[in-house]
């Protein structure tokens, strides 16, 4: 399978790239910084004994470059990509966002507007190609109103809405969308936060996400227990949600 990965240098994206490379997928790595992309490409080559995957610079906060970056990613894999995976996103705690409107604006446009614009670029290429899988890492934070993830969760709720709706529109024509919803994952993004129950390591999350991408499942909670957790939370009365910190 030919896979493009935006956000492959860190966290879940790094784990996903290693799993895909280990089983022989052809990869192209997209990310903000060429230096760190090249180090990650070298890591994949050293671990697999195969040549370094190509890298393409792509910054989620520079939508004007998306078209060129997506074209470059297709070119790097000989014109064909089977799955385009977006793990890149910004995160900040609700407290930090409430103190910093600037960061709130950046987070909302990166995690929502620009991620969707990027997916639109990819969709157009997939239509020309005759199909493909667009897998986007959203979050359980977008599933239900909760105190600790009001702003970040709002961006992810909108993103999930987009991904799940687009799948309804385009699946019959071969463009399949996968909305991946991780729970709390132990990465640099969440370092230092109090750990809720069901926290998982990136490699566990990545393994399940990769299975969902292989099957092109429209929606995947990783780990799976979060489907149940969020089902319960969605049905809790607001009076309860006001009292718990979760």
């Amino acid at each position, binding site marked *: 399978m030919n896979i493009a990965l935006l956000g492959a*240098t*860190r*966290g879940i994206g*790094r784990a996903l790239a290693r799993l895909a490379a280990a089983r022989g997928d052809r990869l192209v790595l997209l990310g903000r910084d060429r230096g*760190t992309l090249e*180090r*990650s490409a*070298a*890591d994949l080559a*050293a*671990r697999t*004994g195969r040549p370094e995957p190509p890298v393409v610079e792509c910054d989620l906060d520079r939508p004007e470059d998306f078209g060129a970056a997506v074209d470059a990613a297709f070119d790097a894999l000989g014109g064909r990509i089977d799955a385009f995976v977006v793990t890149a996103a910004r995160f900040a705690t609700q407290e930090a966002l409430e103190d910093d409107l600037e960061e709130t604006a950046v987070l909302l446009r990166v995690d929502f507007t620009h991620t969707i614009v990027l997916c639109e670029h990819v969709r157009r290429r997939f239509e020309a190609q005759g199909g493909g899988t667009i897998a986007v890492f959203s979050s359980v934070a977008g599933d239900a109103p909760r105190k600790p993830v009001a702003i970040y969760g709002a961006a992810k709720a909108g993103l999930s809405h987009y991904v799940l709706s687009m799948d309804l529109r385009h699946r019959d024509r071969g463009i399949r969308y996968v909305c991946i919803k991780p729970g709390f994952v132990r*990465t*640099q993004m969440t*370092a*230092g936060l*109090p750990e809720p129950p069901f926290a998982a390591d990136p490699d566990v999350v990545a393994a399940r996400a990769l299975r969902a991408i292989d099957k092109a499942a429209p929606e995947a909670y990783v780990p799976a227990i979060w489907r149940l957790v969020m089902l319960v939370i969605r049905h809790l009365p607001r009076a309860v949600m006001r009292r718990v910190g979760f």
Partner: protein
Amino acid sequence: MTDGTARGVGLSPVAALDPPRLSGWGQLGVRARERLDEDLVRLTERAVLSRGLGRSYGDSALPPPSCDEVAGTRLADRILAFDPGTGRIRVEAGVSIGTLVWTFLPRGFFPPVTPGTQFVTVGGAVASDVHGKNHHVAGCFGAHVDELRIRVADGRIVDCSRTRHPDLFRATLGGMGLTGHVLEVAFRMERVPSGWVFHEAERIDDVETFVARLEEAAAAWPMTMGWVDCATRGRGLGRGILQRGRWADPTEAPPSPPSPLPERVVPFSMPNWAINRLTTRIFNELYYRKQIPRSTWGIVHPERFFYPLDALRHWYRLYGPRGFTQYQCVLPKPNAPVKARRFLELLTSRGGASPLCVIKDCGPQGEGILSFPMEGISIAVDLWIDDRTQSLVDALNEYVIDAGGRIYLTKDALTRPEHFRAMEPRLPEFEAVRRAWDPDLTIRSHQSVRLFGDPP
């Protein structure tokens, strides 16, 4: 609630602390947090200390009292280059030994030296200059390192080796992370004939025989170590099981390379009394008699041979919330058998009983200025924390000073500074190099404040 024993050195059982809390493997800790980042250059900019996977037992990887944060390196786990022709490899400091094992064993390479757990980072292996079952032939991890990239105290990033800044290089091997933040390590992986181990285990009746048999085995076998029953007194003192191993030939090994074994988990902390003198004696008796014949041999999975305790995740929970420590020392030749017996006699006479007591003969001292091993016998025992642990460690340290030996800082939580200075004549040399690179001693640890007299 602070344990009276541990309070003397400013550590508390971590279970009794409010978050954020951070501890060594022995579950004695402080209120502090670990900052994580994939980018070590950014992460270490103003950090006081780097910490890997937190497998040092005591306070080596905890911040000094005036500081509440360390730089956690474990997300910086990229392998930057590997040459299958020579085995040369360059990695970020947060890559674990386990990653190296499971990435490269199928391709015929193994880390040149591995400690008794795979859950240590390469940066940690450098800082502790770890040794393994092959110390008598391979030396410490540092012997296989070609180059280190270090962020030193003034913020510069320096490459050092045996020819460039050799003082910094030698001080960093075994330097407990006190010379700077290790960012990248270049070293040589060992080519192995198969991924499996041929192993022999032999029951030994007493400690003198044990030391003699270890010495014999060292001449013929690349890997040796022993488990000692240190709960039995008298003639059977120091009886145990001697293990010898070598990499299996492709002809005798199973056709496919080994895969990681499933681990079992200790799901919650046992009560403090679960491991006591009686249960320890029962465990030791059963373990000593686990094999019916005096000798057994065969092909074993490398994890069973190198990392038997890794099969039990969170095994520290067996000791309960009180926490524990390990005491590891090396007793130099000559007369190592006599010294080993006296050490065990002292341990048992003062009521120290340990389910885990490991004995190993070490080869010559390595290049690292503060590197632990020296030619002689190394003994490691687990000690649970109670009212008597501090005085037991003091007594053992006094004996080790008399015997001309020294302790392994990576295991230590309770040694007093005067004892450390008495057993470490190399300290002035180390401190001279360290001050040349870090005059204000900004890079320091809870342990270096306790033992080296660094500013808090």
